[in-house]
């Protein structure tokens, strides 16, 4: 893998930016160049949010991911917005709990994960985003699952450390779903 660009998109409040950060952190742990950039500013307000993560062997030129290798889609509007941008034969992982629509492109490698329901099974609906991440990493192989977990350990602040086990099992649950 020379360079892998991921677009992660969903509603504000779904943890899109956080998931991207975990992914980028995992990339860093593997000694790669990484960049992460959010959609920032007014558009965050209430509406949708997305971020771009690039993991590469060389320094990343633009942090913008115009033609993502991988799409991690949390809701319907994001599917509409970003599906056309993926590279040919790219990866598309959908949260099928919120996206009832079928992707239009036939070239993409498509994965569907009913993340909200799965999170409910874990007893905390908020971790659906890490389930998505686990599945995405498994499907694409962009980073090692182990490093995603390590990233979580490093990122989650001390005072919220007790949530770590739950987060780790969410990642595992995602991995298993693929």
């Amino acid at each position, binding site marked *: 893998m020379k360079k892998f660009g991921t677009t992660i998109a969903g509603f504000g409040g779904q943890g899109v930016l956080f998931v991207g*950060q975990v992914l*980028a*952190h995992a990339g*860093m742990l593997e000694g790669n*160049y*990484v*960049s*992460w*950039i*959010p959609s*920032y*500013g*007014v558009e965050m307000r209430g509406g949708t949010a997305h971020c771009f993560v690039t993991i590469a062997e060389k*320094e*990343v*030129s*633009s*942090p*913008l991911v115009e033609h993502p290798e991988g799409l991690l889609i949390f809701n319907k509007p994001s599917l509409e917005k970003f599906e056309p941008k993926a590279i040919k034969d790219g990866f598309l992982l959908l949260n099928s709990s919120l996206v009832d629509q079928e992707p239009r492109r036939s070239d993409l490698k498509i994965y569907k994960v009913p993340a909200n329901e799965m999170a409910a099974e874990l007893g905390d609906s908020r971790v659906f985003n890490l389930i998505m991440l686990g599945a995405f990493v498994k499907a694409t192989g962009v980073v090692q699952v182990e490093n995603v977990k390590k990233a979580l350990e490093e990122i989650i602040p001390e005072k919220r450390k007790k949530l770590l086990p739950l987060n780790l099992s969410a990642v595992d649950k995602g991995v298993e779903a693929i």
Partner: protein
Amino acid sequence: MSRVLMKGNDAIGAGAIAANCRYYYGYPITPQNEIGEYMSSEMPKAGGVFIQAESEVAAINMVYGTSATGARVMTSSSGPGISLKMEGISYIAAAELPCVIVNIMRGGPGLGNIAPSQSDYFQATKGGGHGDYRLIVLAPSSVQEIYDFTRQAFYLADKYRIPAIILGDGFLGQMMEVVELADSAKDDEYARIPEKPWAITGCKGREKNIVNTLLIEPDTLEKHNWKLKDKYQQIAENEKRADLYRVDDAEILVAAFGISARISKEAVDMARDEGIKVGLIRPITLWPFPDHVFKNLDSVKGILTVEMNTGQMIEDVRLSVEGKIPVEFYGRTGGNLPDSTAIFEEIKRMGGM
């Protein structure tokens, strides 16, 4: 040394604290809000002071006050806020007070938008305020450089008693990259604050000190102006910096700074892959402008300046080549980034391909 994933804006804060800056005054404005937010939580921990000033005008004048006491101090803003600081910056330059000013550029003019831009180049390099003065202008192109240049900016500011600007853009401020932090920063050359016998501290045990920019007699002010000019000359001699990439045998050069240079680099690689002899000059100090790297480029047939504005640094490139090499322009504005493929196409066109 520790490696961390960090936002550009946070790296500015971290760099400043590592350089023993203990005073930060700022007013929120996107896309650099994280700087103030970082400082509001980190400065107290470092025993420093954070004030959310009532305005950019107040912030720069607080900087003036603190800098006069000899302490290291920083402010940050973007476009409209930087414009409001112009009078204060002119005063600080006139009084030869060191400080660091960060401009995380956004789209302009007017309120514009909050997307990245490089359209405050003229303002930073030619002096947006009144009177003859110059600022040291450093243009990082990665989060690592943001961190490093911030520390260096304090060092240079103190060395020459001059305000130094970090000229970034919304993307550099918002993006995260891996940064190697200088853990031992406290003792390094950037962290060391020199003696400042001119500082305002109360005149205990010495003659009074004065910080003043009113020089009512033309002869006095003229002397001061030429003294400043000499200092600027000296800085120009010592501190010009540029990063050269694949220029040795180049027939075409791309000139770009900051984030534009990263994207241009990709285009250069694309063109090299096709056998086009192209290189990249990335000015790091925008003032003093590294004109020396544009001299004696005998093999070069053309220069393409790439900027996120409608054409500003190109003037300095043209001044540097003195008509010897044609200089062309490719620009994107309004928050749009240059596109590496488009730059590649321009390079091909210039290469006659």
